[in-house]
Each structure stands twice: as structure tokens, then as C-alpha cells.
């Protein structure tokens, strides 16, 4: 039997492991282990590391998740963060008041940011316990999407579509440099793979021309600077039609949307890109274990044949209110229906 690390590495390199790996991406749920409010838990690397260890022990999945919250990256640019009792934190107010403020922006040092330094500490703690046995997954927000946090969506779309091209390109360049630095800092601390979060690259968000003008060149630039596989994620946005170009630009894997046909995504990936997904993390909150098993089996039937597939949610974050019995049912489904060689009825 493979270790979780071997299983995930085999799948990410587009081969068949002993069974389909399951990535339960649970950044928040560890707080329940300690009865801690989320705003305390997400600032406590030791508690987060211990939370990941306990969740791994209980659920039996195939990774630990070295992720606290996305708004931490905006903190490196001067943002403050708003915490909620039952969900992921958010940027309280974008650090750039308008597009013109981007003109003087320089890429900050991610290791000098307190929130990101805590994430690096979390990675080191997880590496101390799991390195080489259980893969350590980290995240970085990609250059076309990070400005959403820095400016707010409306200001960013105004700059992207109608604004000064020099200012736009400067902001994209700052975000590209920061993304590469932050992703590689996490790899240097012990992360085994990095989720490259680019929601703006989904087909719902940008046209093919905008995707090719802005998102692809950034990926081509960042990928070789990061010494670990990049898993391209659009946070639930559809991306199947762009998979071949994403593979060519240097990603090692892609996370499919629940609205994507997983079989079609695999065909588009063409064995050059591992495919992960595409359980619906929003609908999952209302599932019972039987529905979770049914949904997981659908994913396995579409994704598992031929290997190169990892069962996980479409977004990169399972919601706070998701039932532990649902998580158990997802893992059990992979253990039962995701073993290679696949049974004909899978």
C-alpha cells in the first residue's frame, strides 16, 4: 500500500496510484478540536498544525493543508482582515484606495508579513511531522486575481478593462513577482505542492483573449520559479476549455468546477495535467452521507480511469458547516470505488 505522499505524487504525475487520493481541504475545522474562535485559531500555527494532524487521523484522507486564509496575502500589502465566527476571513478594506495608488506599489517581502510568517511556521511544523509521508499542500493567489483583494473587484475591473495600461501592467507585474516569491517561500519551508489560485482565469470571468493576454503569461513566468508542482485552481469557476493551454504554460494539475464535465476536463488535460475535483463544496453542506457517496462515485467514474486524478472539492475549501459524516463518506467512497485497477462498475 502506498503512503499518502506516494499516492498523491503518483496521481499528480498523471499515473495510477494504488487508489485515487482524497484531498479534504479543511483550513477551518481544526478550530473545533480546541473550541477556539476562528480569529484566534487562524493566527495560531501550532493549533492549526495540531488541527490538521487530528483531522488527518480522524478522516484518513491524503494530505495536510497548510493554508490559513487568503486575505493574509493582502495583509502583506497593508490590508486588515475581517474574521467571521463560521467562515473564511476576508479583506476588511482593500489596501489600495484607487487604481492610481497602484503606481507606487512595490512587491512586498512575504516573509516580513506577520500573517504569512505564521503560515510559513505552520508549514515548518507540518513538515516536521509529515514530510515525505503525507503531502503538505499550500496556496498562493495568482497575479490576475490578487488585485481583486488589493483594489476591490469593481476598481480592478475598471483598471483592467478601461484603465491606464501602464498602471494595469505595473500592478500585474507586482502581483506576479509577489506570487512567485510567496509560492517559493512556502516550498522552501516544506510545502510539496502549491495551489495557484486564479479565479479570474475561469471562463465565467474572462474572455479567451483576456485569459491569453493576462493569465497565461503570468503562469508561464511564475511556474519555473516555484520548485514544486503548481495546481491551477479557479475556486469553483469553469476552466475545462482552457486546460490544454494551462498545461502548456507549466501547471502540473488543475482543479475542476462542479459545473465542469470532469470527463471532458480529463480529455482536455490530455494526460499532461493531473485533474482534481469536482465535488460541490457549497451543496455539500446539505448532503447526507448517501448523497456524498453518490457524488463521490460520480466524480470517480469520470475522473479515475487512467489515473492522474485526485478526489477533492471544486474550491479548495470545504465549508465550516459540512458534516463529519459527509467527509467520512467521501473518503470511504474513494477507498471502496477508487482502487486501481478499477472495478468495472466504478
Amino acid at each position, binding site marked *: 500500500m502506498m503512503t499518502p505522499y506516494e499516492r498523491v505524487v503518483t496521481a499528480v504525475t498523471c499515473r495510477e496510484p494504488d487508489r485515487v487520493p482524497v484531498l479534504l481541504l479543511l483550513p477551518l475545522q481544526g478550530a473545533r478540536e480546541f473550541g477556539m474562535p476562528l480569529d484566534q485559531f487562524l493566527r495560531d500555527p501550532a493549533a492549526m498544525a495540531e488541527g490538521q494532524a487530528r483531522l488527518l487521523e480522524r478522516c484518513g484522507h491524503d494530505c495536510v493543508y497548510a493554508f490559513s486564509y487568503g486575505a493574509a496575502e493582502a495583509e502583506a500589502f497593508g490590508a486588515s482582515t475581517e474574521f467571521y465566527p463560521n467562515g*473564511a476571513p476576508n479583506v476588511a478594506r482593500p489596501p489600495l484606495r484607487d487604481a492610481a495608488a497602484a503606481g507606487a506599489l512595490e512587491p512586498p517581502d512575504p516573509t516580513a508579513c506577520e500573517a504569512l510568517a505564521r503560515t510559513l511556521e505552520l508549514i515548518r511544523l507540518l513538515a516536521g511531522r509529515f514530510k515525505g509521508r503525507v503531502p503538505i499542500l499550500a496556496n498562493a493567489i495568482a497575479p490576475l486575481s490578487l488585485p481583486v483583494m488589493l483594489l476591490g473587484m469593481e476598481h480592478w475591473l475598471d483598471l483592467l*478593462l478601461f484603465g491606464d495600461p501602464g498602471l494595469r501592467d505595473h500592478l500585474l507585474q507586482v502581483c506576479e513577482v509577489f506570487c512567485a516569491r510567496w509560492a517559493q517561500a512556502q516550498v522552501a519551508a516544506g510545502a510539496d505542492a502549491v495551489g495557484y489560485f486564479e479565479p479570474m482565469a475561469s471562463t465565467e470571468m474572462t*474572455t479567451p483573449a*483576456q485569459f491569453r493576454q493576462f493569465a497565461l503569461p503570468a503562469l508561464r513566468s511564475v511556474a519555473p520559479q516555484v520548485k514544486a508542482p503548481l495546481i491551477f485552481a479557479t475556486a469553483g469557476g469553469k476552466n475545462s476549455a482552457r486546460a490544454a493551454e494551462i498545461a502548456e504554460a507549466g501547471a502540473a494539475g488543475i482543479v475542476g468546477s462542479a459545473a465542469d464535465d470532469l470527463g471532458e476536463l480529463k480529455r482536455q488535460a490530455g494526460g499532461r495535467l493531473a485533474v482534481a475535483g469536482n465535488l460541490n463544496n457549497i451543496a455539500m453542506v446539505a448532503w447526507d452521507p448517501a448523497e456524498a457517496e453518490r457524488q463521490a462515485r460520480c466524480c470517480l467514474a469520470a475522473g479515475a480511469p487512467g489515473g492522474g486524478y485526485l478526489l477533492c472539492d471544486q474550491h479548495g475549501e470545504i465549508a465550516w458547516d459540512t458534516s463529519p459524516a459527509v467527509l467520512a463518506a467521501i473518503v470511504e467512497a474513494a477507498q471502496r470505488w477508487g482502487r486501481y485497477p478499477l472495478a468495472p462498475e466504478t
Partner: protein
Amino acid sequence: MQSFLDCDREGTRAAIQAALEDGVTLDRLVVDAIQPAFDDLDALWGAGQVALTQIFLAARAVDDVVSAAAPGTAPPARGPKVVLGTLVDGHSLGARLVGIFLRAAGVEVVELGGKQSPEDLCARAVAEGAQVLAISVLMLCSAGRVLEVRQILDRDAPGIKLIVGGAPFRQDPNLAARLGADAWAPDALQAVGVIQSLADRP
């Protein structure tokens, strides 16, 4: 329509301006050109053939013209009065787009912006004499608080219809009903029709 698809804000604005200079009233322009273009755009969005950036361009271009319309030339009010806001979270672009499309369709709308509490949204809907309270969210934990809005409306203003929209409702089409909304819309363009039909319901 083509200028919407090309993200050509100037082209859209110029086409509308030319029609106005030819003597077409803004009201006729909305009914005969802009609304059908919105319908076409929404059909393409539903089929996955246009992106948010193109919807955003359409909203900006139409808003340019409607906002700049001379006093007295704006389309006559159609449909219910709407109070519109983003519940709890600060992701207010969706509500902004709904507001722009509602105004372009001649609907009277009071926009409250982001980070609104359930209590404030309901209080403003009552104070404004609205027939519809329209709520947008991005985050699932914000969507959960629609339940509180429902409870306050049931207690204080049972005649006000509650419509919701945003990513969590699109991802789980049963979520709006579970939270007690009277209706939901999958995108900003469809929200206009849903709101107009909602007000006609008993």
C-alpha cells in the same frame, strides 16, 4: 450588442448617443434596444459564451448613458420599488450590477452597498416603502444570514418580497428556498425579470 461582446465601452456609448441624437427617446432605446441586448447577453452568459468582463462592460456603458440622461428624459418607473444591498460581506459588485440593470430597465432602486446587517436591510426596506428587498452575497457564511432577514421580514413587514443572488445560490439552487427567500436569480441580468415578476405575485 457586438460592442458589449467586444468589451467596447466607447463603442457602446457612441451607439446609444447616436440613437439619442437621432431623436430616439431613452425610454424607447431601453425597451427596443438595450433590454433585448441584455436578454441576448444573458442567454449567451447562460450558455457559457460570455464572461463577467463583458457583462461588466455592458453595465458600465449603459450606466454612463442612463446616469447622464437629462432630467425628464429618464424612462418612466416600471415595476416595484427595490431596496438592494450586500449582506454582511463586502463583495458588492454583484449588487452594483443588479442596481445598474434595474435602473436601466426603469425600476426604482435604493442601493445600500456592502456590509449590511439583516436589521439594517429590513429597516431600510420598510422605511423606503419597498415592495422588494434584494440581497446579494458572495460568501456562504453570509448567505446563511438570509434566515435572519426572513425572520425579521415575517415579523415586521410580511408584504415585502425577498429575492437573493450570488455565488452560493448559483452553486446550490436549493439554498434560496432553504433560507426562506421568495425567489433567487442566477445572475444580475436575470435578476431584473425575476424582481419584476416577483412583485406581481400575491
